[in-house]
């Protein structure tokens, strides 16, 4: 088995909502329903202190988490310095720092 043909079969990039386990995502949304109101404007990411230094994209990561894509989300959230600039800019008034902490909590930390 596993003959080597000099390439490997690509894994799908699709977000499969059917097979993703949405339990943690639902927990996060239940704890902070306002997260659903994100309109993807990107203010948070544009202003992000960590995003200025790395590829960290808060908007994208929390959106993926909401879809049940948890892989790597915890590690990404650990790049955040919780400085709170994003919260000052969010046009939907989302408590972004709480989002970071919730995701860290549900996906690994404390």
């Amino acid at each position, binding site marked *: *088995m596993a003959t080597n043909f000099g390439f490997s*079969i690509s894994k799908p990039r699709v977000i499969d909502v059917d097979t993703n386990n949405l339990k943690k995502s639902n927990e996060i949304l239940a704890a902070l329903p306002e997260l659903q109101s994100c309109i993807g404007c990107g203010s948070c990411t544009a202003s992000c202190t960590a995003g200025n230094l790395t590829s960290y994209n808060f908007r994208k990561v929390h959106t993926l988490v909401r879809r049940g894509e948890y892989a790597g989300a915890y590690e990404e959230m650990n790049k955040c310095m919780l400085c709170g600039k994003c919260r000052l800019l969010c046009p939907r008034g989302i408590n972004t720092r709480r989002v970071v902490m919730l995701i860290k909590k549900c996906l690994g930390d404390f």
Partner: protein
Amino acid sequence: MRRSNWEDYQKSIADDHYYYGRSCIRQNFFPGSEKAFLEILAKELGRDIYDDPLHSSCTGIGYHSDIVPLDTIMAVVARQFALMDEAGYENFVTSCITSFGIYTEILSTWEEFPETEERAAKTLYEATGRKLVKPKNMAHTSDVIFHFRKQIAEKMCRPLINVTTGEPLRVVEHIGCHYAKIFPKKGIGGSEFPYVLAGMIESWGGEVVDYPERRHCCGFGFRNYLVQANRGYSVANSQKKLDSMAPYRPDFIVCNCPGCSMFLDKWQYTIAEMEGTTYGEGGQGIPVLTYEEMAGLVLGYDPWQLGMQMHQVDVEPLLNKMGVQYDPTTKYLGKNGKYIGKPAAAAVNNCNDVGLYEIKV
């Protein structure tokens, strides 16, 4: 499924006098199919079809792989059309979906941008002294079979029915992307619900299986297959389709594109070898047929004459279901009775292990 909407997409298909354009992939991997097509048309249906030894590859693979420039391929296509005219035909039928896409694309380009047609005609004349005459009718060979599906049904001796259960065979149809996804109006049934193969299956007693990834590409993708590093992406596409159709337990897959037939067939072997996944009943793979092979079987042709021994996935389980009489000992014998060699044993060509095919030269 209520598929009546295919009727919105009708196209005119010439009734007789065809100029035949062969397919690079089909004639190499499924040579029996092209032969069967010519036979069905000439002998069964009594139509005039001309198989011109002068015509060449359309160079579509090169074009889609960014090797052949647009002007070059236009000149090549112009030459095919000139040959057709010289042979006295005006209905062009092509065996290859890539070619079909190329011809429709170029004809459409010439229509939208007449200066490109002028340029192609000029190049053709300067290079070969030939004169460009565009075909009156352009069709894919599957369109032609679709056109005659009822006549074929009348002559049918083996409908697409499981002889043991009496149930219709469950058939997955796969349409080549370039058949209707580029110009939906140029394909029977359009791009979303193409009817060209489904029509044949329904006319011949089978049941079409719709499944979620029906529209998905087989993964050939030209560049994606040709470059080894990208090949995993190519396989992944076939895998996605196979994974999606597997729960529907199809008896076989039928394609109108030679590339798709090849990849859906051969990638089953690759997936089995690389990941150990096999599809179909008992993990014997899902046989992949060309529509010519399907028509040939329906008309009672010998499977080995149809070239079905060239498949990666063994077709015997399907032949058994259909009640096709075949001689296992002649599977790997060529036209002149000479042993043509056989594939090494693999999960998807299980019939090989039986030892029936140990041919003495």
